[in-house]
């Protein structure tokens, strides 16, 4: 499977540099290495979800507890989380660091992923969620750090879109 192991390592190390100690996730092809790394790391609690929206509540609980957390999901998982983001994270000013695999864009071969790709950025903009891209290995660490800094200072959700260029090697 040509999911980039080297990029996944850089992302995971960057999350650890930011003192992320809890990750919630739902399995997704591009996230397989990240999930395994989180599972094997004794300093990180991985919470495997049934549906991504649960991750909003779990991250809110972690925030109340003073623990920094992140959410790993596919963009369709972001779509499934929207009510939780609006009526919990936005309503109660909860910082969320959302790492979202950006499926359904240029190069996508799976027909079932394509509609989500069309609406992801429009929804992020419509919800006034600050977002940026993880699209090159040299900028991953800085972008993750900056995203988390903004989430914590603004007390709101921020999104990083994991792109095909970074996550897929073929």
């Amino acid at each position, binding site marked *: 499977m040509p999911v980039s192991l080297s990029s996944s390592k850089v992302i995971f190390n960057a999350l650890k540099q930011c003192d992320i*100690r*809890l990750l919630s996730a739902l399995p997704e092809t591009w996230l397989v290495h990240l999930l395994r790394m989180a599972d094997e790391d004794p300093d990180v*609690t991985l*919470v*495997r*979800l*049934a*549906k991504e*929206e*649960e*991750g*909003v*509540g*779990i*991250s*809110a*609980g*972690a*925030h*109340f*507890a*003073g*623990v920094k*957390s992140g959410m790993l999901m596919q963009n369709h998982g972001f779509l499934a989380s929207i*009510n*939780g983001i609006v*009526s*919990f994270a936005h*309503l*109660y*000013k*909860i910082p969320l660091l959302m790492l979202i695999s950006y499926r359904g864009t240029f190069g996508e071969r799976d027909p079932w992923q394509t509609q989500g790709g069309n609406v992801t950025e429009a929804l992020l903009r419509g919800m006034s969620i600050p977002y940026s891209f993880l699209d090159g290995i040299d900028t991953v660490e800085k972008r993750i750090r900056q995203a988390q800094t903004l989430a914590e200072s603004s007390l709101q959700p921020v999104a990083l879109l994991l792109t095909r260029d970074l996550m897929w090697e073929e």
Partner: protein
Amino acid sequence: MLRLDCLRAIYPELEHCLVVTIMGATAAELHSLGHRPNFFYLQHAMGLASSTGLGLSLCLPDQKVVVLDGDGSLLMNLGSLSTMARYRPKNLVHVVFDNESLLSVGGFPTATSTGTDLEGIARAAGIPAVLTVRVVEDFRTAVKRALEGTQLTTIIAKVEAKGPAGYVTDLSLIENRFQFRRYIQSLKEQ
């Protein structure tokens, strides 16, 4: 059995717990008994009270966490039972007030009114201790035992579909949220 009587019966036990409630009647009734800084009322995002309790209990294993859930909210996020069961934090007590009704949004009957069995669902999801109670004294005993015990417990409390006249309290959502977090930080400093 009235939810308010249940809440009154366990109010003393909640003094040293982190408490997360669902929206509407449950929040308003607990608040009416006397707000405490360790109470967080999730006034929207139906279904996520149990997820919030899971996040809290995993991050604070030495604190007792009580979620005051409802049938309507839990039915919106049944997957939460499987996630809680997967990690089964020993310090989490999950109370579900089942009034078979979406009382706070107009009293529409939920699926528990037509036979859906939340105790059965919770048990089959893998929650290690599950029970249903129908009288206040049993409720109080069940919560007390669960708090003293070391097993993730879901308590289904069958209650009447009755609540307060209004749901808005004088505590702003944001104030509640910051106060709750500050309370938890103060525990760490002790």
